[in-house]
């Protein structure tokens, strides 16, 4: 797909009239990027500082290289010139437009959109009425056209009234006044000019001029389609990731200038008893919790995969914990775990009494201090995690089981295999790709443990008694948001990333060697 052709008026030399302005624009953007780069490098502390500044410098260097490629490609009239030029213009539209809107205070004003809409939501009824009338017209007889016309104008009138009620006229005047204020107008003009040249390069005319073939055109279409996603990925995932990697090499409190300290934060981690304790806790947690969140889920899935009545109901029931909010669920479990009034200890008490009555003995029921005893506080977290995860894992296994060829079970039946033999020799081997996925995702979730111990322990410190529920993410959080050690916290984050990535990679490689992933 390309945009509609735009008529081109060529000069005598065979160049379209927009070619010279395009070259000038290309050079201008390159000069602008270079100036911005120089300003960012030398004007330290004026606009942005710290790791953000370095990221900006890297982005500007990237942009400058891109601009150079675009100039060269444009002058050579090759597709690369069109592609890189279009990419730069597209990014300029997005970035300059964003800055302009931000400077105009539009994003903080979005709160007002909700308020204005809520205050006038009743006016939507006019549009709804028009919509109903329009639907009614389908069933009407001869006057169908007139009714549709009335319906359309009712909807238009409703929308207009709603817009006026929301303040469209004063709003547009305000918008215009902000648009011409200070530097905003420069950003807005920059975005508009970039949009014009991006649109120009998108035409069939430009495609012909730059010798773009069909495959290249389709590739550009594809890139444009994925652009919003890629930009979102860069802005909200890759960008912060790179920034956090840089921060981990600094001593930074998030508020003042960062000081580059090289690998010092990482070196300190090895002698930090609290970090090592958090690592030990999470590894113990992983070794116990992950198998217990996976193996029972497999057995449960086998049970739920049977044709017994009511299985659909139980599938939904087991899935519920994974869709319930973790905060609410943890608060409920916190009450259950309470050592004096919690139902868990009450149940232990009753069961002990019941058995005592059966055997004619008086036994003292154990009343574990689930949250406050450092020897079992982590077990409480493990129980909660398993309870949350098991349902989701069950559903994944169930989906995997339903993909297994039924004829395998029929053949096993003919061979006289029992349920256990079929589970062990057919279901489990055939589910190995699913198992790899379940184990990997549970491991990643488990190693990032945060909410459960944090809420279970509140209002006491989240690290728990004798730091028994201190996890790397809690330690990271404490460093970043209590102790203002963002640099060190970033190093903890990256150490955790390496751990998770290492374990997952190892697991996938082992699975790959076994041919599981290819199957």
């Amino acid at each position, binding site marked *: 797909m390309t945009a509609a052709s735009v008529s081109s008026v060529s000069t005598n030399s065979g160049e379209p009239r927009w070619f010279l302005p395009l070259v000038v624009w290309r050079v201008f953007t390159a000069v602008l990027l270079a100036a911005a780069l120089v300003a960012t490098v030398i004007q330290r502390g004026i606009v*942005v500082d710290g790791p953000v500044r370095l990221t900006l410098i890297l982005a500007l260097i990237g942009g400058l290289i891109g601009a150079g490629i675009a100039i060269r490609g444009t002058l050579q009239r090759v597709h690369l010139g069109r592609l890189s030029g279009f990419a730069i213009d597209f990014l300029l539209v997005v970035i300059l437009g964003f800055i302009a809107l931000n*400077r*105009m*205070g*539009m994003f*903080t*004003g*979005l*709160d*007002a*959109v909700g*308020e*204005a*809409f809520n205050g006038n939501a009743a006016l939507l009824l006019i549009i709804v009425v028009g919509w109903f009338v329009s639907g009614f017209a389908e069933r009407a007889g001869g006057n169908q056209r007139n009714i549709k016309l009335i319906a359309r104008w009712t909807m238009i009138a409703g*929308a207009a009234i*709603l*817009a006026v009620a*929301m*303040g*469209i*006229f*004063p*709003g*547009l005047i*305000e*918008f215009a006044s*902000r648009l011409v*204020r200070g530097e*905003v107008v420069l950003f807005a003009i920059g975005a508009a000019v970039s949009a014009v040249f991006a649109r120009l390069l998108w035409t069939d005319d430009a495609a012909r001029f730059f010798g773009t073939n069909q495959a290249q055109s389709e590739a550009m279409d594809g890139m444009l389609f994925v652009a919003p996603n890629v930009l979102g990925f860069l802005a909200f995932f890759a960008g912060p990731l790179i920034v956090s990697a840089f921060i981990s090499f600094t001593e930074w409190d*998030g*508020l*003042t200038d960062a000081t580059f300290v090289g690998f010092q934060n990482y070196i300190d981690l090895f002698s930090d008893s*609290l970090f090592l304790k958090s690592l030990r806790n999470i590894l113990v947690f992983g070794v116990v919790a992950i198998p217990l969140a996976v193996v029972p889920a497999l057995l449960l899935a086998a049970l739920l995969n049977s044709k017994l009545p009511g299985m659909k109901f139980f599938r939904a029931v087991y899935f519920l914990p994974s869709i319930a909010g973790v*905060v609410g669920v943890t608060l409920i479990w*916190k*009450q259950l775990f*309470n*050592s*004096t*009034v919690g139902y868990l200890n009450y149940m232990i008490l009753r069961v002990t009494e019941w058995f005592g009555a059966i055997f004619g003995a008086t036994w003292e029921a154990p009343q574990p*201090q689930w*949250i*406050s*005893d*450092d020897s079992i506080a982590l077990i409480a977290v493990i129980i909660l995690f398993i309870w949350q995860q098991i349902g989701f894992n069950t559903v994944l296994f169930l989906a995997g089981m339903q993909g297994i060829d039924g004829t395998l079970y029929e053949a096993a039946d003919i061979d006289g295999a029992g349920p256990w033999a079929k589970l062990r020799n057919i279901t489990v081997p055939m589910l190995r790709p699913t198992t790899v996925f379940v184990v990997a995702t549970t491991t990643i979730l488990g190693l990032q443990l945060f909410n459960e111990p944090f809420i279970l*322990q*509140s*209002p*006491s*410190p989240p*690290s*728990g*008694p*004798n*730091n028994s529920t201190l996890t790397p993410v809690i330690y990271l959080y404490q460093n*970043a*948001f*209590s*102790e*203002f050690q963002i640099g060190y916290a970033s190093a903890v984050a990256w150490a955790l990333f390496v751990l998770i990535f290492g374990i997952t990679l190892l697991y996938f490689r082992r699975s790959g060697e076994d041919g599981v992933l290819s199957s």
Partner: protein
Amino acid sequence: MKKKLILLFAVLALIAAACGGDDDSSDDGATTTAAPATTTEAPASGGDDVALRWMTRPDNPEEAAVYGEISDQLAASLGYDLTYEPGSNEGAGYQQTLLTNLSAGTAPDVFWIPGTEIADFAKRDVILDLRQFADATGHNDADFYEGPMAQLTTEIATGQPGNALWGLPRDVSTFGLYVNLDLIAEAGVANPLELEAAGEWDIAAFNEVVDGVAALGGEIKGYGQSAWWGPYGAWMNNAGGGFFTDDRTACALDSDASIAGLTALRDLYSGDAVIPYGEDPETPFRAGTVGMFQNGRWATPGIRTVDFNWDVVGLPSGSAGPGNWLFWGAYVVNANTADPEAAWNLVAALTAADIQAQISGLGANIPSRVSQDALDAFLTFTPPANNQAFLDGLANDPTTEGPLWAGSWPEFVTLMDSEIQAVVTGSRDIADFQANICSETSAAFGG
């Protein structure tokens, strides 16, 4: 084409409505200051075009709603365009939101921070010294409780109270003991309120009540407290000790008085008459199975939902008298605010007596202003009948919660919390604690 027109229409409507909202880019608002001292008054002139955002953490949704109403009320009286932000949401806590906004340069003009963080923010030049604006408006430090003001006027260079002014306290709070009167009566032990009235409410009497209530058996316990620094610190304060030396430049956890307080706490927890240390005590108290529960004024709205007879009594007197904490937090001004003068006006207005009376009318806060009107408003919030217990806590020379100007409070707390817990739960010998704790926490003082 129609769809495009509808889309364009929607975008325009969106833009229009958004423009009708806040304009944070306003930077040309000229203001002069008035003196909102005990009541909120409009600035003498020129509130036009001033847009300010302010943020404070509410204790509950009702309080958030009142802050929103106060924002509207002050917007009208000051003539500013004010936006209130609660700061926390489902995805992030108040502190997380604040620090992220400060890092990104998008923090509100005025925001609340706990008293323990004043030094961290001041030393990093994140908040403004408001003295010049305060002097211009006739502000008087003595209108507020002395303890918080000592911290809020501390000079960075000396670490001692001086002529700085980092903000004004939003509210204050003290600890009290929430008492289940039904359990007390059922146990047949002396009523702590009567003991207090008779001047006999000391640690020994407290222990008798705890043991007496716990003797009811089953899940009934005599007492409960949380495991953070406030509750155990109160025991040290009671014994005349504390976390720091008087000038707050060194650790005093190893002082004899601090150790005496900690020993009393450890002894209390060595038996099974109390909710195990580290367990949440509020849930069983609200379930009616705990005789006494130590907490601040902020717990009152939640306790009001219980269906047994209850009241509040002051903390029992230790060897150094009825020690307590004075908890507080302050409104401060963002160093990057476009309009510091207007921001100061907002801080002053937010801490005016009539505004504090509105907040304290919800029951969770005690006014920070030494004003009889504000205190009267606080006392009208019943139950508890004995609101005076919290005010007595203020009057009995409480230890003021505060930052470490010569060290790192968060680091100190992290180190202290786990070691205190180890002592109270019996996994660390108290003599070993006394011998080593100050060297173990020396890192927090840069040691």
